[in-house]
């Protein structure tokens, strides 16, 4: 299946208008791969057929599926490991020492996709800071632009392949039950997370001031001006001593001078510069 330049432009313009995510020239293969299953399930011949159908009606369920397919990215439990070790050993202990052993802490995991990252954080908290599970001690918001991904995350149901990836076996047996061929995360972990639809490229909804923000491996998909706008909005929902975690190839450098890099045992967090 090959995509014509006209159809590629249509898809990338649509994705950009809805999510601000940029699909540069050369990403034709990505569009072809990501949309192939929609073409099959809709009984269409090719991408050209799909584009014709999208043009027939604005904002149809098909549009939503295309947007989901183009904005969903790889995720797995304990991705990169070190941010979660640092969270356990340094970041949460530091924040609790400034507040009280029971918090309260506010955490936001943005672009949370199918939920592996927020549930990783939930497991770290449940196993190491159980007092934060007390009602009122933790507000933990996870967000994504895709309703389909939010539904999957809320279900807490994962395939064998998904739980094989990155999740220590000891945590699998502790926090999941097997349901048929799939694995269900237990309610006590699931109910720690409040899922919301947030489009990072638009004005953020009202959010509490955060102690910890994870927004990893998503800024790379935006143009510089959008990255700046997102970081500016993130800054406004960070408490003065909050920690911001970005993906390994992402930085605030040259985008927002109000952040400073904080090296933490093989990983990096960003914090707000103190006012002079």
């Amino acid at each position, binding site marked *: 299946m090959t995509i014509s330049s006209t159809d590629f432009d249509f898809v990338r313009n649509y994705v950009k208008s809805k999510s601000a995510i940029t699909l540069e020239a050369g990403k034709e293969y990505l569009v072809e791969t990501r949309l192939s299953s929609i073409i099959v399930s809709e009984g269409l011949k090719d991408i050209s057929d799909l584009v014709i159908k999208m043009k027939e009606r604005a904002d149809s369920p098909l549009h939503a599926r295309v947007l989901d397919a183009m904005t969903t990215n790889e995720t797995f439990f304990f991705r990169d490991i070190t941010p979660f070790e640092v969270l356990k050993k340094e970041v949460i202990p530091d924040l609790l020492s400034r507040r009280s052993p029971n918090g309260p802490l506010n955490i936001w995991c943005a672009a949370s996709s199918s939920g592996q990252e927020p549930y990783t954080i939930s497991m770290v908290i449940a196993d190491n800071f159980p007092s934060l599970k007390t009602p009122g001690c933790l507000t933990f918001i996870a967000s994504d632009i895709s309703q389909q991904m939010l539904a999957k995350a809320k279900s807490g149901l994962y395939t064998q392949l998904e739980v*094989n990836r990155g999740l220590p076996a000891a945590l699998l047996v502790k926090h999941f039950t097997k349901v048929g061929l799939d694995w269900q995360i237990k309610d006590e972990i699931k109910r720690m997370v409040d899922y919301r639809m947030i489009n990072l490229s638009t004005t953020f909804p009202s959010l509490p001031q955060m102690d910890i923000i994870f927004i990893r491996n998503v800024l790379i998909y935006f143009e510089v001006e959008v990255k700046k706008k997102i970081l500016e909005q993130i800054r406004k929902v960070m408490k003065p001593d909050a920690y911001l975690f970005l993906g390994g190839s992402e930085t605030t450098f040259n985008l927002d001078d109000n952040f400073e890099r904080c090296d933490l045992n093989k990983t990096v967090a960003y914090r707000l510069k103190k006012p002079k």
Partner: protein
Amino acid sequence: MSLHAIIIDDARSVRMILKKMMVELGFTVEEAEDGKKALEILVQNGPADVALVDWNMPVMNGFEFIQEVRKQSIYDEMKIMMVTTESELVRMIAALEAGANEYVMKPFTKDIIVEKLTIMGLINNENASAAH
């Protein structure tokens, strides 16, 4: 000095796939077709850094292998990762209680193996990226 792995599986094709992955990650690799043969190799060559062990094998299965190995303190530092089609929770719990450090349910991908080796502290993110 490279890390040393022993791959224990009665299916030659699985041993070949795992060996290729481990060699690409910088391990030196030995192979055994059952637990008994693996114990003989370990006695002869000394403990490996990691053993990748199938569950169902003739002569001595993977679970019996773990039980034998964990009786001997010389293997305390050796990590054991089960790589098996057994996917029931009770099996997984039994393997972990017997002394397995990690558990992979077949089918597996290289990413899965890499992530589990990283969890066990045998490789780091840089090794993993370099091997891709």
